[in-house]
């Protein structure tokens, strides 16, 4: 027997298995717009809540899946630490489990790594109703397959995350934001040139002829980089608001994109090699991660967006404002599609969890 909150989740899974039912894992429901079709009864994870352990000198925090992300971030901030990958907060209720399952990272991704790079361990409630722990609470751990990291971005298709241990880092000692006027191709070239030099660049954003950089690190390093890079320094409260707007999609670009949905536009997330040349696609683009993440608001046909992105070595996700039936994530080719189906079967043989949230047809 597990503790009551977990046991009742296990019981729900066993009931669903027995009755050939399916479950839709829900935390704060802040990302309901994201991913493929939802089906099945809701499995609310919020009863599994709270930070189970946090010791700042270990740089590790373990939190139960239903813990609100805001609560976790506040606890870290009190000890001058943070989640270095800046997960987006699309609403106040977002949870730690949802953050890991969606696998989305914020402006610092290219410099700091993504969600999966900071997952150290996790407990999973599998489709067989088993409670399984993988990874651990230590930085280096090569005992067995690294199942916990695969859960980052898994959209719940392998099971429900019950708790997760994350690597955290101290807040940077100093931060500065610089702005430059630059066209897209020049900005991409410049960002990649800068990234090859030992500069403390932590985030970048280009939109509509303007490139914004964030520097983070030791005070001396940030000071020296400001001098070396030039540009126009943006004052802190304004700069902080800008980066949060990017992170949480409150920025003007995203507000405008959402307003265009009614007219048939889709907000695409294009993942590309940082050096990929500007893509010849109609619509507004906002470029982050030194060129590796490009947001495109466009009414272009899905096939054209996917083909152009794939041709440049990347993949396109229909992030928001689309018909989900057409598929959200870039389709997989053989043998990856087969491996996905087999992994789904290995963790969730009866197709209990989140069917259709990642790919339709994943379920056996």
């Amino acid at each position, binding site marked *: 027997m597990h503790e009551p909150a977990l046991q009742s989740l296990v019981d729900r899974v066993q009931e669903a298995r027995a009755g050939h039912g399916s479950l839709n894992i829900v935390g704060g429901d802040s990302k309901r717009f994201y991913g493929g079709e939802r089906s099945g009864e809701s499995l609310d994870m919020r009863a599994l809540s709270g930070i189970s352990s946090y010791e700042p000198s270990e740089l590790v925090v373990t939190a139960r899946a239903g813990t609100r992300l805001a609560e976790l971030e506040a606890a870290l901030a009190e000890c001058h630490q943070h989640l270095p990958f800046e997960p987006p907060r699309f609403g106040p209720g977002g949870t730690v489990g949802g953050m890991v399952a969606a696998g989305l990272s914020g402006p610092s991704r290219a410099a700091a790594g993504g969600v999966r790079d900071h997952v150290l361990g996790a407990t999973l409630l599998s489709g067989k109703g088993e409670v399984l722990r993988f990874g651990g609470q230590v930085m*280096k751990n090569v005992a067995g397959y690294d199942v916990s990291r695969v859960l980052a*971005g898994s959209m719940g298709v392998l099971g429900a995350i019950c708790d997760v241990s994350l690597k955290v880092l101290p807040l940077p000692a100093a931060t500065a934001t610089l702005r430059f006027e630059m066209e897209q191709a020049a900005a991409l070239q410049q960002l*990649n040139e800068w990234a*090859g030099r030992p500069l403390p660049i932590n985030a970048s954003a280009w939109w509509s002829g303007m490139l914004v950089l964030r520097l983070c690190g030791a005070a001396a390093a940030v000071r020296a980089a400001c001098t070396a890079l030039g540009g126009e320094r943006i004052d802190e409260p304004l700069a902080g608001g800008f980066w949060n707007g990017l992170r949480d999609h409150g920025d003007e670009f995203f507000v405008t994109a959402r307003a265009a949905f009614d007219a048939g536009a889709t907000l695409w997330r294009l993942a590309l090699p940082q050096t990929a040349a500007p893509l010849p696609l109609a619509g507004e683009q906002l470029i982050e991660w030194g060129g590796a993440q490009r947001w495109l608001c466009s009414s272009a046909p899905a096939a054209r967006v996917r083909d152009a992105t794939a041709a440049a070595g990347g993949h396109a996700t229909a992030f928001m404002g689309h018909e989900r039936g057409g598929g959200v994530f870039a389709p997989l080719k053989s043998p990856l599609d087969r491996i996905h189906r087999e992994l789904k079967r290995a963790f969730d043989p009866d197709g209990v969890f989140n069917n259709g949230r990642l790919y339709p047809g994943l379920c056996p």
Partner: protein
Amino acid sequence: MNAPLPTLAAADVAQRRAEVVAALGTVLPAHALLWRNEDTVPYECDGLSAYREQPLLVVLPETESQVAAVLRCCHELKVPVVARGAGTGLSGGALPHRLGVTLSLARFNRIVQLDRLARTATVQCGVRNLAISEAAAPLGLYYAPDPSSQIACSIGGNVAENSGGVHCLKYGLTLHNVLKVRGFTVEGEAVEFGSEALDAAGLDLLALVVGSEGMLAVITEVVVRLIPKPLTARCIMASFDDIGKAGDAVAQVIASGIIPAGLEMMDKPMTAAVEGFVNAGYDLSAEAILLCESDGTPEEVDEEIRRMLDVLTGCGATRLEVSRDEAQRLKFWSGRKNAFPASGRISPDYMCMDSTIPRKRLADMLRAIRRMEVEYGLRCANVFHAGDGNLHPLILFDANDPDQLRRCERFGADILETSVAMGGTITGEHGVGVEKLSSMCVQFSPEEREQMFAVKRAFDLGELLNPGKVIPLLQRCAEYGRMHVRRGLLPFAELPRF
């Protein structure tokens, strides 16, 4: 290794060999196929020589299409395939299968492309870890993970083991520095995991394949991330008269908001052993020594070194020395990097453990090991990657004394069990291989181990890729693993190890 193989008469093995040689002879040139006894003997072990097995035969393909053909052929004949890189692994991950083919990737040793602007290197799997950084040096870039065998170990092996090094805390493991791998499924179908973007569509299979010890796919090409070389690096050597104070100092450095480029600890028996070997200038009266490294711009390093000196002083360091120049910095590290061979000089045999524990338990663990030394009547010298809690206790013993061997095995088991009880793991960077199969039973429940088998079958239904490694069968779960070095003769004794 995991389950005993059925007893087969030598004649049956010879017949099977003839069958497989005939089949592979149709897809490989004759010189790429080794099957005579004298040719396959050199492949009977990897860096962990305590385990030996002669493979049925060895293949050395030169092209990806040959690798694909070998895999297709073996899949059809249901022959196990054990991929092998440089053979420097310390857990027996490349131990041959008696009825299997050892697939040596030694000939895949070409750096395919260095992209300055994208800061990536595309390299074949047999390229040595250090060779990547050497090739990238003219661009002002390097490949960060630096396992101490880096002059010999290959990037393919690093991917298989998710190798670390002394700079992991700041720069991450292999997984954090690899963008994409290319290879083949057990059926011989070409496959790519990851992408040259920062993520790929679907499940993050790259995270699963890195560290999978050759059990999910055979990797032939790797795209690694290169990063700008720090302008400078300096190292502090700090002495402590008490291991508890040294352990606290490690926690305090981190708690003060510093992520050192390297943070290593050695205890008194270890400094005594290495000082006689390399004359690094270690403080022999100290109960523990810490090496704390900072890298970055000169201004940044000055600032960080100053902050670390303050913390270490506050924690009661009895002696502090900061490297004046690159030569002295390397001298500070020389002892640390020679800890394994130095131990081989002071004891006929030693057994190396590789567990990881939460940092705050370092001092508790050292005290526990001191108690175990009395309990088991054996000495133990300790080197720790203190920054990430990864321990390498070296238990000193004489294997010619059966009672010492028995006590040593119990000592090692006790350390691993204590590590798991402290919230740690049985292996931080050497891998499970065959060596720590039994220890996996301590860390994972039967359901968790069965789930790992299910993951393997999702990639490799017939369990032909490196079978019998990493995940113990139920009947195996009775004893604990160890690394046993005969007579101080570590294979590749010239390589630094840590």
